[in-house]
Structures are given as structure tokens and as C-alpha cells.
């Protein structure tokens, strides 16, 4: 009976701890502290050196739970990533996730060598342990702060954090093996890395396809879809690891494939996995908190802090600036990417591997890893929103978050039901327009369900449900999400017609009888902007072209992707807009930060 009592006690204690973790989020949110820190703190408080006094030193258990949790977190990360986003940042991401990790580890090694007095291979291990940015931390911090980053910066950060974990894990395990078995040659390590990556990619691809196939082919009961996918993810991970491929890469790829293929119950799966990811985060951080012995920390605190700051201020920026040098990122963006090199559970998790295999000095790696993660979450995590604003990489918030409900319709995959609540300022109430690909099916009014015909004219307070293709559901937001003030500041200021950047000047001259230089005829609008005002164009920049003007509309990294065609003023001379001089552009850059702040305080 005593054994049963222990089990019940463990259940009670474990769940109470998790509950404490969940509730700690309230406190963390109130103070704007990163949530993950709250979970870690609860674990530490409950642990041996805290008031909880729970003795927990089961590294094997931590590794097991940590692996599963990490697999789910990575899968969820893949699930939320669109192919289109990742494709646009593929090259910088891959380089950051591979070369970047190596550079970070290499720059960290001398610091570890001198600060911790370890030998060179051991110092490399310290570097590898702290080299990867944490997907969970980056995703969570960016999303929970409601930050809207410039798409390219956000996508690079998320894709990098998702893909560099597998690489840091390779590197760590390779160095651990080196320390255990004596020295291995660099080429041997490189080959084994390649084989692991290729194997992981293969398992991930096949596993992702199999999950999609199973979802769509098996007639699973409603509640089982999400469970099927979650277990599928863990199986993909386990399979990858079992055949000595990278399970972490595999599970991320599988998530990517499931998230980007039409599959049944997509919204249920996403909701379920979001919840599972939260639970995984809480459990993982709490276990790591429990495992840490803060009592041991003071002796190693100073060198560990040195490592943490060296990482934040030297190693990460060096790696980012070197890796992103060939790509078109502005310095502000590079600084931001450097600053958001958040470390998280992966770092502590990797730091526990030496403990698991009982390497000499294992405790040092763990303590250093722990301090680095703590400092990173505290300082970088807390300041991420400020950094985004100061560095001018955040986009202004676009109104309230949509209240869209998506309902899967079993029997087919091409349509789903999309629901909206209509408030007083709903655009639909003013314009009564529904895109041709959507169809109003029913209206819920005063708790009564009515068909579209029965409901007649939709009014304020109704909930409407439309039939629409799932991939176009987000586009419905424009028609049905309440927008308190839908006011374009100055209609027409951005031009009368939109032109994609690939339009050539010759085509425009032909269409509007414009007088342009023969040499400019084959130049595209994008290049024409670059020629006239250089590579730092900004939205609303204007250049003249014969009798009309071109206004920069959509600008990515200083390059004009689409422009507005502004026709001449009626019966008025065409204004000759001066070309922005370098001095003017510099002034604009200097003024950019305060301007942004002003705009914010006004809204």
C-alpha cells in the first residue's frame, strides 16, 4: 500500500506543480516577464535548494521528458510555418542554422577556455551547448508579445530557431562522443552530421506525408485526429533517433508538411498542439528548474555570467553579421536578429547530456548552460519588444485580433465553415459585400440558428457563418472583422493604379504615351526606383516619370516591390518632386525612431 501512496502523492505533487506553473503565467504576464522564466522559477522553488525541498536528480527522466516535449514544440513550430514564408528566407536561414551555430560555438570556445579553465575540446562543448537559439522561446516571445515583425525578419528568426536546434544537438553529441571516446577527425564528424541530417530529412518527409495520408484516409473519430497527429509526431521523432538520424530535424519537417498540406480537422489539430506545446513547455522548464541546483551556482556565477554576456554581445552578433552579410538585410535588422538569439530549454537540455553520460566536469556545463539561458530570457526576453521598436523592425499593429471561427466539414477538404461575430463597426454592415468564392450559409441571432434566407438582412450582434475554401479564410477577415476606424489617411496619395515591380518602364510609356529615355525602356519599375533613389527606398517615396509619378507602395529592404501610378493633377502642372539627397535620407533615418513613437502615442 505504501507504494500506491507514493504514486498518488507523486501525481498530486506533480499536478500541483504544473498548476503552479500555469498560474505563474498570470504573474509573469502582469510584470511583462517572459513566461518561461516563471515556469523555471516554479521548478527551482520547488526543488532541493528552494523552499519546496523536493529531491530530484533523475537526469534520465529529464532527458526523456525533455526530448518528447522538444519534439512536440518543434512539430508545432513546423505546423505554423508556411512554405511561402520559409522559401523566401531559405538561404539565410540555412546558413544561420549551420555555419552560424559553428561560428557561435567557435567564438565562445576561447571565452570558455579562459573563464572556466577547460581544455579546448571541452570549451568547444560549452560553445555548442549554448549555440542554438530556442524555437520555443523565440516563437513564444514573438507571438505572446503580439509583435508584428517585418515578415522577412520574423520568418528568418523563426525558421532559424526551428532548424538550428537539430544542428546544435548534432554538434553537442559529436563533441560529447569525442570527449568520451578520444579524438575523432573533423571529416568523420562532418560526414556523420551530413548522414544524420539527410536521414532526418528523409524520415521527416516520409513521416509528414504518412500523417497527412492517415488523417485524410482513415475515418478517425472526431476527437482522435489531433491525438493521431501528436502521437505521429512523437513516432517520427522516435524513429529518426532510433535509426541514428536527427529526430529533431525529422519532427520539424513533418510538422511543416502537415501544416502545409490540406488535411482534415486542421484547426482542431492546431488548437490541440498549441495546448500540448504549452504543457510541454511548462513541464520541460519545470523539470529543468527542479534539476538545477541553485545552491551550487554562486561559485560559478561570475564566469558563467561572463559567458552569457560574451554570447549576447560578441558571439551571436559576430555569427549573425557574418552569416547575413551576403543577403540584403539592413544593419538594424541584423542587430535585431542578433539580439533575439534567445536561448531556452534546448540549451539546458543540451547541457544535461554531459550529466547523462557522466562526462568529467559535467556539472560545469549544466550550470553554465543554466545561467546563460536564465540571463538570455531575463534580459533579451524582457527587452524584445523595445528592441523591435527602437530598431524599427516592428510593423504597426493592425487593429484587433480577428475573431474567426473555422469549422471543418467532414466528407471533403475544399470547403469549411468560417464564422464571425458582427460588431457595430463591422465592414460588412456598411458595404454588404461578400467575395464571390464565399457563401453566407447561416446566421446565429439571439441564440437562434437561422439559414441565410430566414435571417434576411444581417444586423449588428449577429454571428455569420460562411462557406469558403480553408486557404482563403484569412482573406475573409477583411470583410468581416470589426474595424473601428477604417481610414486611409489620404486616398489617392499612394497613386491611382497599382503596378507590380516587374512592369517595365517601356510598357508604361507605351500605355500612356510617356516620354522616357530609350535606355530606360527595358528597366523594371523596381530597378528604376533603385536607379533614381538608391537601395533605401521607403513607402511613399515619389519619382516622376514623364507626365506621371510613381509612388513606392510595397517596399522590402529598400527595394520597391510594387508602386502606385499617380496620374497628373487635373488641369494642373505636374509637380516636379526632387530626388531625395543622401543627406535628406540620412536625416529621415535619424528621425525615423521618434516618429514611430509619436504615431504610437497618438493611437
Amino acid at each position, binding site marked *: 500500500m505504501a507504494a500506491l501512496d507514493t504514486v498518488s502523492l507523486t501525481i498530486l505533487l506533480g499536478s500541483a506543480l504544473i498548476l503552479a506553473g500555469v498560474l505563474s503565467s498570470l504573474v509573469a504576464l502582469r510584470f511583462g516577464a517572459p513566461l518561461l522564466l516563471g515556469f523555471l522559477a516554479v521548478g527551482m522553488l520547488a526543488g532541493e535548494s528552494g523552499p519546496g525541498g523536493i529531491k530530484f536528480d533523475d537526469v534520465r527522466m529529464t532527458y526523456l521528458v525533455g526530448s518528447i516535449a522538444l519534439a512536440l514544440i518543434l512539430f508545432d513550430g513546423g505546423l505554423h510555418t508556411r512554405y511561402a514564408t520559409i522559401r523566401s528566407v531559405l538561404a539565410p536561414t540555412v546558413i544561420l542554422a549551420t555555419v552560424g551555430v559553428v561560428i557561435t560555438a567557435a567564438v565562445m570556445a576561447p571565452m570558455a577556455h579562459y573563464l572556466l579553465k577547460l581544455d579546448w575540446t571541452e570549451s568547444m562543448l560549452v560553445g555548442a551547448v549554448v549555440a542554438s537559439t530556442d524555437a520555443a522561446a523565440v516563437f513564444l516571445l514573438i507571438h505572446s508579445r503580439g509583435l508584428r515583425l517585418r515578415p522577412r525578419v520574423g520568418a528568418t528568426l523563426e525558421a532559424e530557431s526551428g532548424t538550428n536546434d537539430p544542428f546544435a544537438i548534432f554538434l553537442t553529441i559529436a563533441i560529447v562522443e569525442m570527449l568520451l571516446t578520444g579524438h575523432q577527425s573533423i571529416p568523420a564528424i562532418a560526414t556523420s552530421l551530413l548522414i544524420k541530417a539527410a536521414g532526418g530529412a528523409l524520415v521527416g518527409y516520409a513521416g509528414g506525408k504518412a500523417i497527412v495520408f492517415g488523417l485524410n484516409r482513415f475515418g478517425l473519430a472526431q476527437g482522435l485526429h489531433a491525438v493521431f497527429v501528436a502521437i505521429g509526431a512523437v513516432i517520427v521523432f522516435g524513429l529518426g533517433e532510433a535509426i541514428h538520424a536527427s529526430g529533431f530535424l525529422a519532427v520539424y519537417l513533418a510538422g511543416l508538411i502537415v501544416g502545409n498540406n490540406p488535411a482534415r480537422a486542421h484547426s482542431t489539430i492546431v488548437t490541440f498542439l498549441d495546448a500540448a506545446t504549452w504543457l510541454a513547455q511548462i513541464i520541460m522548464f519545470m523539470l529543468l528548474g527542479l534539476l538545477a541546483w541553485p545552491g551550487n551556482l554562486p561559485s560559478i556565477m561570475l564566469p558563467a555570467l561572463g559567458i552569457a554576456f560574451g554570447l549576447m554581445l560578441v558571439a551571436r552578433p559576430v555569427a549573425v553579421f557574418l552569416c547575413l552579410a551576403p543577403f540584403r538585410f539592413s544593419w538594424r535588422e541584423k542587430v535585431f536578429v542578433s539580439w533575439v538569439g534567445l536561448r531556452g530549454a534546448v540549451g539546458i537540455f543540451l547541457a544535461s547530456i554531459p550529466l547523462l553520460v557522466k562526462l568529467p566536469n559535467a556539472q560545469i556545463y549544466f550550470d553554465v548552460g543554466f545561467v546563460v539561458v536564465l540571463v538570455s530570457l531575463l534580459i533579451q526576453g524582457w527587452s524584445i519588444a523595445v528592441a523591435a521598436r527602437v530598431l524599427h523592425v516592428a510593423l504597426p499593429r493592425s487593429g484587433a485580433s480577428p475573431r474567426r471561427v473555422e469549422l471543418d466539414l467532414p466528407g471533403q477538404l475544399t470547403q469549411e465553415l468560417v464564422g464571425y461575430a458582427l460588431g457595430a463597426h463591422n465592414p460588412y454592415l456598411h*458595404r454588404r*459585400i461578400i*467575395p*464571390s*468564392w464565399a457563401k453566407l450559409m447561416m446566421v446565429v441571432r439571439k441564440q437562434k440558428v437561422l439559414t441565410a434566407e430566414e435571417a434576411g438582412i444581417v444586423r449588428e450582434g449577429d454571428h455569420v457563418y460562411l462557406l469558403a475554401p480553408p486557404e482563403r479564410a484569412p*482573406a475573409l477577415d*477583411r470583410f468581416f472583422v470589426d474595424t473601428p476606424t477604417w481610414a*486611409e489617411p489620404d*486616398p*489617392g496619395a*499612394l497613386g*491611382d*493604379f*497599382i*503596378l*507590380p515591380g516587374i*512592369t517595365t518602364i517601356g*510598357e*508604361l510609356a507605351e*500605355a*500612356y*504615351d510617356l516620354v522616357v529615355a530609350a535606355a530606360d525602356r527595358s528597366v523594371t519599375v523596381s530597378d528604376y526606383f533603385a536607379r533614381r533613389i538608391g537601395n533605401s527606398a521607403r513607402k511613399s517615396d515619389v519619382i516622376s516619370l514623364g*507626365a*506621371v509619378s510613381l509612388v513606392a*507602395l510595397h517596399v522590402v529592404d529598400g527595394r520597391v516591390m*510594387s508602386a502606385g*501610378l499617380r*496620374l*497628373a*493633377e*487635373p*488641369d*494642373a502642372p505636374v509637380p516636379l518632386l526632387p530626388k531625395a539627397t543622401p543627406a535628406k535620407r540620412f536625416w529621415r533615418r535619424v528621425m525615423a525612431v521618434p516618429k514611430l513613437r509619436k504615431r504610437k502615442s497618438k493611437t
Partner: protein
Amino acid sequence: MPITDLVAPQAVIPALKVNNKKQALQEIAAKASESTGRSEREIFDVLMQREKLGSTAIGNGIAIPHGKLPKIEKIFGLFARLDRPIDLEALDGQPVDLIFVLLAPEQAGADHLKALARIARMLRDTDFANKLRDARDAEAIYAVLAMSAPTEIKNAS
């Protein structure tokens, strides 16, 4: 210059029933063919060619397809109100229900641009666009178009 010098009363379509851009331009080309004497196909091609450069939707449910049509004597305008709005890839994402077509003779140059600018500015006025939306029939629409002229000149000066 009043706007009615560009549009004849018979060049107003009060309730065009179409489902997409291609159909809309085909129907409009057919109507324009009656007044200009040019072939339906030719007019459709001219309008489509301009659409290929980028959408002519200007936002707020309005589009102004246009192009140069050889061998017509003067600038020709046609106004169509759609029975049901269609998607024309406008920047603001709003489906279009008011279409003003403008066809200019070859070498109209500045006049073509001026006419386009005038129409764009006129239709951007939300009150004016809503009057066009609320007008009962073709005559009423034409009356709104004719009325627009004096206020437009006042605003411009």
C-alpha cells in the same frame, strides 16, 4: 470639362450581371463596340493588355479599366454598375461594383491622362460613388454623372 462629354447616355450599364473580371470586360467590350464601331474582340484585348500591367481597381469598390484604341475619333467612356461585386485584386481588397471604362485614341497622350485623373478623383469621392450605387436606373445614373461636373470643377480650383 463636364464628365458627360466622355460618356454618352447609352454608354451606361445599370446592372451588369457578371462573375469575374474576364466576363465583365467581355460584356463591357460588347457594349462599347456598339458605340465605337470597333470590334468587341479588339476592345477586349486592349483592356486586358492594360490589366496585365497591374489591376486598374483603385479601391473603395471602384475600377477604371482603360487603354488606347486605334482609329476612334475621341476619348470614349462607359460606366457599368455591377449587379454583384467581383474581385479585381484591388489594393484594399474590396470587391469592385463600379466600373468606369475609358478608351482613348492613339496619341491622345495628355488628354488621356487628364481624363483618367479626373475620373479617378471623381469616383474617389465616397458620397459621389454612393450616389451612383443608389441611383435607380440608367437615367438616374446618368443624371448623377452629369451633376458631378460643376462640383468637381469647384473642388479642383
